[in-house]
């Protein structure tokens, strides 16, 4: 059921308005000694996302499950046979995404008000955050691929601006550039995917609802089985290519750990909870297309699993608290793609949802630690902070038990569901399951390592810093507590073993139900859910204990940079070397073109120039030459010569 709505455009407009107002304030005060009043700008910064959240919640409560709202605001691009609209679609998938994007977005903006206190760029930061939320809302609320692409590039741009927020450090700028360029490489894939769909389905290829109808229309079955097959594979391949960049999957993943150069609230909001999950959103949104190409589905599953394992192992080597969490995010995104590739789109989105809570909690908690220790991010210089920062410790414990999957927490329910679905997948399900379970053990190991190094044992850093350590202000505490409680309880929206607790799954079934039936085929009896729960819990406990035993004894000494050392360095950054395979030849080619080819052209033009100068000097002797006259003469002469030659020829 699709009904018309006249209010959807307000949703993205709210944060855009906020961004415009804050941006104007930032510009107007850019030459003042101090920035604008933080109380007022901070209030404005939280106001607009919060209003967007309230509106989303209101619409969601009004709308029954299975129903959706649609609004075409105005045509955007109308050229020949192509029509792209500014159109919005508020259905079961976008409502879930919007609820946590605007909700967590508002909370993290509030947290930033405390975190960024006293920074000269306070207002600018808030303007960027609002702009980001506008782009993110557009991304998930758009009713067509091109408008989603607008949001897609928009979030990439905001990510660029926020990673390089402290722009005086050249390293931050380099990280920002890398993020933008890698994402641009992905965006090309997205665009080509759109083109493939436009070729396949014509004008219907752009709009989600029309494409869905087109794919399910029996009249098109022949095209899909025949010449359209290649285009389906191409479209799915290119769109997934786009996802690998945005969601930091193999091979386009190296930008995300570098992106930790941005302020911590940015890492929590953009590089953990929302933007990086938009790849999973896109695959789910296009699930009707993806299931038509089993080869690409398998590719997604393997890329997801590979990324999950690689990032989990990399996480073991990190000594920077934010880098641990960054690799953890990459790894969890891998889990989501593994599920999507196995046809469990709803489980993937559920993990996106719970992950948003526990990873935001972890990042904000880490931010609180960094804030307390005056910017210290090196785990080797922490230790024993449980006593100094008891509240922050408790908050991080909530996030930690959730991510490793202690029964009852949000992370437990979603990961459990996800692993069960992977096991039951028709293609190599068992193998994928055991590999994923092993990765879950690794997850528990590196996360426990982080907790032990930061909070257990003795303090290893500068005593001077510890003396000033303090808990955060309420603006930071409140969002952390809400998110921490969320990471404990959010899982009960779809607790597999509790009858009736499946609101989340029911909500999504109208979107992904058909696709999942195609991908998974008939339901068949697997082991009972209890077995998976026990195995999952065992993985968490084994990892936890192993890590606890090892890292309470072996504490790395705080020497040198917190980047991984030796083999770990090579291993964790292997994909940078892979990128170099593309970047170096490009640089070399640019060098060749500039120093050899361009020089040749220039030599040639010098010859011409010399000739022209000689001629004009000659002319000047003949005429009292102003340049205008010379040029007039040369035009006339060329014409004359040309006419003479042609006259001979014809």
């Amino acid at each position, binding site marked *: 059921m699709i009904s018309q709505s006249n209010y959807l455009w307000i949703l993205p407009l709210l944060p855009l308005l906020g961004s415009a107002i804050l941006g104007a304030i930032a510009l107007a005060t850019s030459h003042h000694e101090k920035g604008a009043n933080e109380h007022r700008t901070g209030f404005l910064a939280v106001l607009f996302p919060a209003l967007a959240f309230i509106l989303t919640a209101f619409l969601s409560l009004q709308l029954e499950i299975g129903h959706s709202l649609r609004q075409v605001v105005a045509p955007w691009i109308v050229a020949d046979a192509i029509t792209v609209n500014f159109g919005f679609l508020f259905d079961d998938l976008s409502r879930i995404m919007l609820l946590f994007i605007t909700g967590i977005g508002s909370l993290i903006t509030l947290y930033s008000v405390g975190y960024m206190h006293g920074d000269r760029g306070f207002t600018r930061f808030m303007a960027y955050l609002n702009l980001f939320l506008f782009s993110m809302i557009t991304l998930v609320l758009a009713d067509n691929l091109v408008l989603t692409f607008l949001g897609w*590039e928009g979030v990439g741009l905001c990510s660029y601006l926020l990673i390089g927020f402290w722009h*005086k450090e050249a390293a931050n700028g380099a990280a920002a550039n890398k993020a933008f360029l890698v994402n641009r490489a992905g965006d090309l894939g997205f665009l080509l995917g759109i083109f493939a769909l436009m070729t396949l389905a014509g004008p219907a290829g752009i709009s989600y609802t029309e494409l869905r109808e087109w794919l399910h229309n029996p009249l098109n079955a022949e095209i899909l089985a025949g010449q359209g097959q290649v285009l389906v594979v191409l479209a799915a391949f290119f769109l997934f290519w786009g996802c690998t960049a945005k969601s930091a999957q193999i091979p386009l993943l190296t930008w995300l750990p570098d992106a930790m150069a941005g302020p911590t609230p940015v890492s929590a909001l953009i590089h953990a909870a929302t933007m990086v999950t938009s790849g999973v959103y896109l695959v789910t949104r296009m699930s009707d297309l993806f299931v038509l190409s089993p080869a690409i589905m398998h590719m997604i599953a393997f890329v997801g699993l590979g990324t999950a394992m690689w990032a989990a192992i990399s996480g073991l080597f990190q000594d920077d608290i934010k880098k641990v969490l960054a690799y953890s995010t990459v790894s969890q995104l891998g889990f989501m793609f593994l599920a999507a590739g196995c046809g469990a789109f709803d489980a993937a989105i559920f993990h996106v949802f719970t992950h948003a809570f526990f990873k935001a909690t972890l990042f904000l908690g880490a931010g609180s630690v960094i804030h307390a220790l005056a910017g210290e991010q090196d785990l080797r210089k922490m230790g024993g902070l449980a006593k100094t920062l008891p509240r922050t410790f408790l908050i991080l414990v909530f996030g930690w038990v959730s991510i490793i999957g202690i029964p009852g927490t949000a992370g437990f329910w979603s990961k459990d569901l996800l692993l069960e679905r992977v096991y039951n997948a028709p293609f190599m399900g068992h193998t994928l399951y055991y590999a994923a379970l092993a990765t879950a053990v690794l997850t528990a190991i590196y996360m426990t390592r982080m907790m032990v190094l930061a909070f257990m044992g003795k303090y290893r850093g500068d005593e001077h810093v510890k003396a000033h350590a303090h808990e955060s202000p309420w603006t930071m505490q409140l969002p952390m507590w809400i998110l921490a409680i969320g990471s404990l309880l959010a899982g009960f929206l779809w607790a597999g073993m509790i009858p009736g607790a499946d609101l989340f799954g029911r909500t999504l079934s109208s979107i992904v139900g058909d696709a999942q039936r195609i991908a998974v085929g008939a339901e068949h009896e697997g082991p009972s859910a209890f077995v998976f729960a026990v195995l999952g819990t065992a993985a968490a406990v084994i990892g936890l204990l192993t890590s606890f035993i090892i890292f309470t004894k072996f504490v790395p000494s705080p020497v040198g940079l917190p980047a991984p050392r030796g083999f770990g360095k090579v291993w964790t950054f292997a994909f940078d070397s892979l990128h170099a395979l593309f970047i170096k030849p490009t640089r070399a080619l640019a060098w060749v073109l500039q120093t050899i*080819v361009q020089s040749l052209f220039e030599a040639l033009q010098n010859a011409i120039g010399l000739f022209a100068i000689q001629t004009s000097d000659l002319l000047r002797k003949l005429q009292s030459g102003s*340049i205008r006259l010379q040029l007039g003469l040369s035009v006339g002469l060329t014409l004359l010569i040309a*006419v003479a030659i042609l006259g001979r020829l014809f």
Partner: protein
Amino acid sequence: MLHLLLASPFIAALIIALVPAKFSRIAFPLSLLLGSIITILSFIVVSNGASSNGAPMATEPFAWFHIPGTAATVQYALFSDGLSAWMNVLASVLTLSALWVSFSSVRERFAMFAISVFLMQGALFGCFLASDAVLFFLFFEALVPPAALLIASFGGPGRKRAAILFAAFTLIGSAPMAVALWAIATWTGTTDGTQIAHAVASLPFVKVSLLFFAFALAFAVKTPLLPFHGWQAETYSEAPTGVTAILSGAMAKVGVFGFLRWTIPLFPQVALHYALPIALLGVATMIYGSLVALRQHDIKRLLAFSSLAHLGLAVAGCFTLYQSAIDGVVLMLIAHGFSAGAMFLLASLPERWSKTCNISSFGGMAGRSPIFAVLFLVTCIAAVAVPPTLGFVGEFLILQGIWQTMGPEIALLAGLGAILSAAYTLRLVQAMLFGKASNEHEAAKEISIGEMFAIVPLIVALFVLGVAPSAVLRTIDPAVGKNPTAVATAYPEKPSDATLR
């Protein structure tokens, strides 16, 4: 109306020239006033097209002179559809902005500067409005003297060489076109743009091909395309930056305009036959320009190669001969006109402040000149075609057309250009705005209110037109017009798919 529009820059030049030296101080406000009036005129022509849903305007032909030895009579006749009208807007807006921003660098000799700029603008209008091939050619050639004069009198240290190089390249490039025009007049007895296409259709393919390439060469030099780009980097970096904004923003568009208005509609069969190689040349130009731009150390040279890359893609879009891609080309021309114009004008500010164009001598401008930095950054974002700027809409339509007509591989190749353009633009942003401020220019300067008035409208236009590209598309696409056949027969505006296949 069209007569008035065409005459207005020449009248403006005359008025400025008549101002006595005693009152030279009023030359600047006067030229701004005249420039604004011309801009308003050009907007009136656009709104005329918009209100009539893209129906073109034309004047009564007026027999001008007889070409000796042929049956052809050159007519003074003007024609304006959405494409012409928007190109005129581009030329007039950029002229106005360039006059405004250049005043601080030119000062005493401003009157002479303004006269030449207005003459160049008049020639641009002539190119965009002429409906007779010979008339077009005369204006096409008339572009060169004022431009060369501006470069030679107001340019950088290598200005004389650059002026001669520019003149030599463009004049030599267009010489074959003169021959081709003469041949057309001889063979068909007409030089009227509406009749040539029909008249040459009966000629043997080889002859038409020769004509086609004679036209194409002139436009390939003007645009420029590889390997005829030798004049560009040197001219753009030596010319006074305000003039470069016009050269790259408006004059280079005459090249692509020539392909769209003359080369393709006049010789559609030949265009179809050679479409793929020429489009590939366009893509190659794009990749080449982007790669070389990566290695430039001078802002203006970097922007010159960036222009090369953008217009390479535009030419590739023309030769897809695909309706929506050609619509995309028009959008891209406008987008690049505004963004390149704004970039060059913005670049002229730090150039004036610190007397250098070397990228590595800047840095940290985001902290020192925050408003300038924001404008520069926003312009760069528009230049790399991030949606919803106009550049994105153009690129999207062109790349889609390339995918449709030439296949995924070429679209992928052209798409690589989009990544490379981000690479060199971000490098520029990084070096200019971010990092530590260099010590070479101690006093932080900021863009003045007047300069903001001149530049901000260009940037705003990129966003407004990007959100509402239909403002342009409605006036150029005969498919959405009320009476498409009337447009097609009145003037061979664009090859429609039906006539080509």
